[in-house]
């Protein structure tokens, strides 16, 4: 009896694998199509703007991936994107559209810097853990508030999360230019610096800090959480059909608030890593649009935490190449924004192709 079962499993396994690959290809096809269409539209746009599209694409490749130097630059920019994309991707599993990643980064970075300044004499590991905890709690509070408002008051979470971001940025500016300002920071108001001993180091052999590894691990952990656990199943059920989930007795409010808190914690952690690995203090450099790019990363990854990893690296690369485009081609720094905007629009339009028979099945 047991022999036949084992044989049956063996016979089934390859079939299941090819089935999985096929499903993955089916899911990725409209996205790849959208990327292709975007490349064409953006080329036309560049041509109209008087730039040579081929040269621009070549420069994007050079600036993003062609050399070890540019690849490291790309990975440095991908690190915050990995985490902040989760701020949109996780709640999206429940059918919520949260766009407050920028607020979570700013809050997290501020909390980490504020705590870090106090912990100047604390040993390395506890200091970093406390900074991370402070950042995650403040980011989580911000996004969980949007989730709670949605659940308890029916307030649209897209609007509230963006409003909370604006409020968070105002509080950030108030504190950084007021009570928490380091009097020595003249041109660019900043908080005092955290201890040099508390900076997150680089991965051996590279200039890339460990924040990248943390981001990848968190993305993978969230992928497992959403795919393989009861929690993830419940979350996906709420996203699939809220009414059915309620009938099944799922604690919807708890799921919504927990997921939003995790999302905000990821965003807050992104801010902490930016502070503890790059800037060493909180200032306006935290508020440079990673949160908004993260929204696009999440959508392009179809809100799949594991898929966030390659997409974040792609966008890290596009951002990294932005400077090169500015210097070599004299294109405005907003060129990257235009590319992202076109991609986002085309990507959503391509949703209409989803589910149509692309492979003749």
């Amino acid at each position: 009896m047991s022999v036949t079962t084992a044989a049956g499993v063996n016979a089934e396994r390859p079939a299941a694998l090819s089935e999985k690959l096929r499903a993955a290809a089916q899911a990725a096809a409209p996205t790849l199509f959208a990327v292709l269409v975007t490349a064409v539209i953006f080329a036309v746009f560049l041509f109209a703007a008087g730039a040579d599209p081929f040269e621009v694409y070549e420069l994007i490749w050079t600036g993003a991936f062609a050399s070890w130097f540019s690849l490291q630059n790309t990975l440095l920019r991908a690190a915050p994107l990995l985490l902040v994309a989760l701020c949109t991707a996780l709640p999206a599993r429940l059918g919520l559209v949260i766009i407050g990643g920028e607020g979570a980064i700013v809050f997290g970075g501020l909390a980490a810097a504020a705590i870090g300044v106090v912990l100047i004499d604390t040993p390395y590991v506890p200091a970093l853990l406390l900074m991370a905890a402070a950042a995650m709690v403040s980011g989580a509070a911000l996004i969980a508030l949007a989730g709670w408002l949605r659940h308890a008051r029916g307030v649209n979470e897209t609007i509230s999360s963006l409003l909370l971001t604006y409020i968070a940025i105002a509080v950030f500016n108030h504190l950084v230019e007021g009570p928490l300002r380091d009097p020595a920071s003249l041109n660019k108001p900043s908080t005092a610096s955290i201890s040099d001993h508390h900076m997150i180091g680089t991965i051996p052999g590279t200039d890339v800090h460990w924040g990248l590894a943390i981001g990848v691990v968190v993305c993978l952990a969230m992928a497992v959480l959403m795919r393989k656990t009861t929690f993830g199943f419940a979350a996906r059920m709420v996203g699939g059909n809220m009414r059915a989930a309620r009938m099944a007795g799922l604690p919807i409010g708890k799921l919504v608030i927990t997921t939003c808190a995790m999302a905000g914690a990821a965003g807050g952690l992104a801010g902490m890593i930016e502070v503890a690995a790059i800037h060493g203090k909180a200032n306006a450099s935290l508020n440079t649009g990673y949160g908004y790019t993260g929204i696009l990363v999440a959508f392009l990854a179809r809100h799949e935490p594991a898929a966030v990893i390659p997409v974040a690296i792609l966008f890290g690369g596009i951002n990294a190449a932005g400077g090169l485009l500015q210097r070599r081609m004299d294109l405005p720094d907003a060129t990257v924004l235009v590319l992202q905007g076109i991609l986002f629009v085309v990507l959503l339009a391509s949703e209409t192709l989803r589910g149509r028979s692309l492979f003749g099945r």
Partner: protein
Amino acid sequence: MSGDLGLWAVPVAMLGGAIRVSTPYIFVSLGECLTERSGRINLGLEGTLVLGAMSAYGIAYLSGSPWLGVLVAMLAGALLGGLHALLCGLPKVNDIAVGISLMLFGTGMAFFLGKPFVQPKAPNLPSIPLGWWIEQPELRAALEINPLFVVGILLALALTWFLGRTRRGLILRAAGDSSEAVRAMGYSAETMRFTATTAGGALAGIGGAFLSLYYPGSWNEGLSSGQGLMAIALVIFARWQPIRCIWASLLFGAAGALGPALQSVGVTWGYYLFGAAPYVLTLGIMIATCSPTRSLRGAPAELGVTR
């Protein structure tokens, strides 16, 4: 009576500020109101506002005529609105997500195309000195009304008439309340929504033109700070009534003018915190008016955002 106003300068500056700051809110909220009454939400008006501001400034600078700038801003807004409507017309495309994407697209395009116009000075729109008979300089300054504010009020009246008293308006409202009913009447809800979203985008474009051509009256990348998004909350607060949009806009304008008004009398503490007043107000209003169990009174039934 030309003496020092003391602390009275704050409400006076807020009155003037309310009229100035509220004008973009009026246009964006009327545009959003029109769009939402047809049963669709456009979250992308923030992008429309910025693109409108850039194109108005650019055209005013190149042609020397600010009014031509306003017209082009309208066209640019209509284009973005039309794009939103086209995309949302496709099956399985989510209007909230399309709004976010157009917000990024519109701002990206505006920053790209507007790069050459950050430095030069374009001619601004003229103002109407309603307070010419007052000697008190602060009060007189507060009553310098911009022509677009007047246009906005007239537009609100016209929209009220259009929605309530015309056949087209009736069909548009029907599209917002029940697409089946519109189909039964022999009209297409899609066409109505396309028209309403395009027109709404054009109005938001005018709001943008105000920002760059009157107050603050210059073009830079930090020009709009969420007015396009706040308009959505404002429309909810106004219960989808154009006239109430005016009152709500004035309230938001006053909140936005709080920070600069306090600064004008020497209160510099908490400048950024007071600057956040409109966001807090928006959030507070949404918390107070929304409910998890019932849809909002006056809300178009086809609208997803209030459910």
